[in-house]
Every structure is written in C-alpha cells, then in structure tokens.
C-alpha cells in the first residue's frame, strides 16, 4: 500500500511538471526551446501513463506510454526541429489578442472555472480518488492553454505547437477520466502525425516567398513534377 502512496506522490509531481511545461509553452518566444519543452511534456505524459500502469496494471496504459514516446517524444519533435532549421525562424515574437502575460493570467482563471464546472459534472463522491479528478482538470486546462497558444501566435509553426499541446491535454484527460481502447488512441496519433506533416509543410510556404516555397517542396520530394522533368 505504501507503494501506491508513493506512486501517487510521483504522479502529483509529474502533474506539476506538465503544468510548468504548459506555462513555458505559453510564454516562450524561442521556437527551438518550444519544441524541446513540448517533447519534455510528452515524455512526462508517458511517465504518468507508466506510473498509472504500475499502479493499475492495465496493459493499455503501457501501450499508450510506448506509442506516446515513439510519436510525440521522438518523431514529431524531430520533424518540427528539422523543418524549423530549414525555415530559419528562431523566434516568434508577435502575438494576436493576448500576450504571454495575459495568457498566463487567463489560464489561471480558466483552471478555476474548469475546476468548479467539473466538480459539478463529474460524479465525485467522497470515495473517488481525487487524483483522477485532478487529472481531468489539468487535462482540460492543458487543452485550453494550448488553444490560447494556437490563437495567440502568428507563426504557423507555433500554432501547430499549440495544437500539439492541446492534444496532449486530450490524452491526459482520456487517461484519467476513462480508458479508451488503444486502437483509438493509435488512430489519433496517426491523425496527429499527418496533420503536423501537412501543416508544417504548408507553413514552410507561408513564411517565405512562393518561389522559394516551390523549391523547398521539390527538395522534400513532396511535389513531384515528372512531366516537366522528362
């Protein structure tokens, strides 16, 4: 039983790490560190899944952890970092509507609102573990924070990062509220990868001139032009 308690303690600490990463994602202007913090956040998520697996023994959680590490810690950050190197955008210093300071304050208020809203909706009898409930609250908060990033940034590449961290929130929420079949989790990840691929490739076009963009697409072999070549 002490094992359970210590796992719960570890999970709580990981919660905090996730939130710190989210706060950093909201406020940083450096794209490269944005990517690494995102992969740190995903790694934390995987660690939480592992900890839950040790506690519950549900094999689905282990699989989720593996899938998360493969896709969100390795593939996607690597891909974005590569793209980012090519377009040579290091910082994103323009913001719509909200600057980072306001976003942080707003997200704080939102957390409270979500807390109260969820405490009404979710069946939290005194017996239910508060850990799961907190997981749900943090999951949705993470989503809203990601949404603020998506809406307040101007560069497409940072918007994508916001979307990705939103998706982390969904995974988080799903992990704590209920257990979904792995196949669905897996399909979501596939969807995520396609979306990221497409958006970043398109985004490369946004941040440069058109000719350059075409050259880039050719270089990535994404735009085949056989009839011209022959």
């Amino acid at each position, binding site marked *: 039983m002490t094992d359970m308690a210590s796992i719960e303690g570890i999970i709580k600490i990981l919660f905090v790490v996730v939130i710190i990463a989210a706060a950093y994602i909201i406020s940083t202007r450096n794209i490269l560190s944005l990517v690494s913090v995102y992969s740190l956040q995903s790694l934390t998520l995987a660690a939480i899944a592992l900890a839950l697996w040790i506690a519950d023994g549900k094999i689905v959680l282990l699989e989720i952890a593996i899938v998360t590490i493969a896709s969100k810690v390795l593939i996607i950050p690597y891909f974005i970092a590569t793209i980012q190197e090519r377009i040579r955008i290091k910082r994103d210093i323009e913001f719509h509507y909200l600057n980072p300071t306001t976003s942080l304050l707003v997200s704080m208020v939102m957390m409270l609102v979500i807390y109260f*809203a969820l405490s*009404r*909706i*979710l*069946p939290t009898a005194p017996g239910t573990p508060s850990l799961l409930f907190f997981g749900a609250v943090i999951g*949705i908060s993470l*989503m809203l924070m990601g*949404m603020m990033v*998506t809406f307040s940034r101007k560069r*497409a590449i940072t*918007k*994508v990062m*916001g*979307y990705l961290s*939103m*998706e982390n*929130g*969904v995974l988080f*929420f*799903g992990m704590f*509220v*209920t*257990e*979904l079949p792995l196949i*669905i989790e897996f*399909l*979501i990840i596939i*969807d995520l990868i*396609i*979306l990221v691929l*497409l*958006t970043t490739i*398109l*985004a490369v*076009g*946004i941040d440069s001139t*058109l000719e350059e*963009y*075409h050259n880039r697409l050719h270089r990535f072999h994404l*735009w*085949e*032009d*056989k*009839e*011209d070549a022959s």
Partner: protein
Amino acid sequence: MILTAFVVATLVAIGLVAICHTNRQMNAVAIAHGIFFVAVAVAMLATVSLPVNTVLLGSQYFSIDHFGLFEILIAVVIFMLGAIYAGGYVESLIATGELEKGSLKLFSGAWCLLLLLIVLAFSADNLALFWIFAELTTILSAMLIAVLSAKENIDAAIKYILIASTAMLFSFIGFIFLFEVSRTTLGTGSLNWTELMQHAGSFPPAMMIAVFAFVFIGFGAKSGIFPFHTWLPEAHVKAPSAVSAVLSSVLLNIGIYAIIRTAALVHQTSAMTIVSPFILLFAILTSGIAAFSMLPQRNLKKLIAFSSIENMGITLIGLAIATPVAVFWVIFHVMAHAFTKASLFLSAGILHRQYHSKFSGEAPDDIRDVFRLQPLAAWGIVIGGLAIIGMPPSPVFFSKIFILLQLVGYSLGALLIVLVLIFIAAGAFGYFVITSFMQRESPESSEAPEASGQTGSGVPPLSSGSPLDFEQYETPLGMKIPIIALIAIVIVLGIWFPSGETAFISRIVADLRF
C-alpha cells in the same frame, strides 16, 4: 463486405491515378470511382434492408442506418457530379497556370480518398472512429484547397485545419465524457451509437449537457457555426470550385450529422430543455452574422459561402425545436441545401473561368455581359439563387417554411428575428445578382474608377487593367452536365415528394427517436 468494396475501389483508383499521365485519364478514373460509389450506394438503398448489419460491413465498428445511407447518397452523388465537372475545370486551371501539372495526381488522389473517408465516416457506428474519419476529412479537404499552391490558398488551408482541428479536439473530449457516462451507467464503456441509443434514457442529464457542449464546439466549427465560422468563407472561396461544392455540400453535413446524432442522445434525457435554447441562440447568431456579412458582399463565391453558414444556422434552428416534424425538415433541408449549393458553386466556377476573377475573395467580381457570354452559368446562379433563398417551389422553401412554422410554437420572438434574417440574406443575394448580372460592357463604366484613381485617393482603381472585351470561355460539356443535373435534381425535389422519400426521412426521424 460493402466497406471492403469501397476501400478496394478507392485503392484501385489511387493506384490508377498514380500511373496515369494526363489530366483526362485521371479524371476518367475519378469519374469511374464516383460512379462506382453511386452504384453501390443505390444498390444498397434498393436491395439491402437497413440498418445494414455488421456481417455485410465486415466490422463491429461500422453500421449503416437510414441516416447514414441518406448522407452517403448525398455525398456520392455530389462527388460524382463534381468529378465530372472537375475534368474541364482543372484543364482550364492548368491552362491559366493556376494549377501545376505536378499537383494533378495529388488532386485526383486526394479527391478519391476524401470520398472514401466521408463514406466511412457516415457508416461508422463507433463515435470515436467517426471522429477520426471526420478529422481526416478536414486534413484531406485542406489539401485540396492548398492544391492551387497560391499563398492565399495555403493561408486559407492552414486556417481551416487549425480552427477545425483545434475545435474538434473539444468534441473528442465530449466523446470521452460520453464513454465515461456509458461506462458508469452500463458497466462496460461503449461508444457504439446503436448501444448508446438504447440506453441513452438512463444517462445522467448533467453529464449529457457537458457532452453536448463539447461536441457542439467541435462539430460546430466543422460546419461553420458561430463563433468558429471564420475559416469557412476563406476556405470555400479559395478552393477550386469543384472542391468548394464538395466542401459546402458534403463536409458541412459531417458536422451537422454529428450534432444531430448527439442531440438525439441528449433528447432522450431531460437535458434537452436546457440545451435547446443554447442551440437556438447559436443558430440565430450564426444566421445573423452570415446574413449581415452577405449584405455588402461583392464577391460571388464569398456570398455563396456565407449563404452556407446561414443555412447551417437554419438547420440548427430546426434541431433546437426538436419536434419530429422539425427534425424531418432539418434532414430534408440538409439534402436540399447540399444539392442547391453544389449547383451554385459549380456555376460560380464557370463564371470564375470566364472572368478570371482572383481567388483572393477580397476583390469584388467584375462580371459583365454574363447572359451573352455564359448563359448556362448565369441561369444556374439565378435559379440556384432563387432556390437557396427559398422561393417556392424550391425544396429549401419547404424546409424553411416548415421549420419556421414549428418555430411558432417554440418562440415567437425568435421567429421574427429569423424571418428578418432570411429576408436580409435573400435581399443580399438578389441585390448581388441584379447589380452584377445586369452590367453590360460599357467603356464609360470602366473609365470612371480610373478617373477617381487619378485624383489621388490612394486606393488603386478596382477594375483598371481588366480587358474590356472578354473572350468567351468555351465551357466544355463536362462542366455543363453536372449543373444541369443538379438543377434538375433541385427542381424535382421541390415539386415531387415521392412517398418513398417521405417514408425514408420519417424513418430517420424515428431512428433518432425524436
């Protein structure tokens, strides 16, 4: 079985597209693909007793009921006509250099795949699976928008992806909630629609409100509901017209379909009384924003796009009332809107080829002498426009009038507002058609803005540089047939209500337990 046939057909089509070399061959593949889908869907309608059981589909996650088949039929017909139309349209895009030859394969391949995904989405029984297919349709249709590879197109595509996908994550949260609800009440969690429908009556109302709220955010964005409608005009305007037709007639339906399904679940609990005023509020806001945006619109495609938003609002109004009659007409409206809007976008496509209007959507159209140059497209716009604003005896007229009649019993104030909005939208459409289509080719009118440009207003004259003599664009037959077919469908739908159709839609309403 059936789904396997669909999948295999699409794979074959994509394989053929990959080895094709000319546009004509690829287009033939796309048309054949469309015709195959229509044939299978019609065969299903004619022979199989609904709901299609799992043995025929080959997976427990899929099931086609009346509603699904209804949406599939709309989708496949519009895709087939769109494919026929796309042949000539794409040819012309390549001729003017707006579309690169290299991206032809991408276009045809994505087109076939999109149809498959839409059919799979409508036949998914599992809501999470449905969500994933819906999300993939967003990505693929964004690809079809970005295929023109102009900067504005990419911009619009990214905006579309980000807004729609961001919002769709919320609806996934909604489905997770739903799963949890079913898990706590049924013991084992399930997202299978048929199972949920059987037990929805025992779900706790408070949770169902949350479920609906989240799902509504997501799929509302997908179908252009306020406040997430901002992507819609841009995406629809900048896409190639064949794609615009599909976006507006089929992809918007996906969102509405999900909202109707979720509302059907909520309807069985007591939560509907709380939810329906909110649906009505957002429906009226959506229609209102769209109607007022239509009023000053000088760009044909943008006008049509906003009209889509307005019609989605009207659909939701019917859903908010949630009486069987209202839902019947909601479903009828979905169909009527789809065909009418497709005919409008396809006609607008011809006009765009004729006048080489920019796809930016900000510039006003410069339409002149339209009845001499493009009589078919002009009449297509006129008839389609009359149909979409609800002139009797168009199908939209019937759905609108019956939804409004149902609204009488719900709220008189809302009725008044909606009536005013419908009139504004109609007026905007009429004003645009009358002012632009009456324009004759006259040297004075084109010199006037240039003179004002010289006075130093700083604004570049809008029509300067446009040639006075438009060369007539030879519209190929392939682009004319779909428009004629769609207009014929619209007229037939308006004046002939076969008993089979009524029974079919009534069956959908019964399935949804409204």
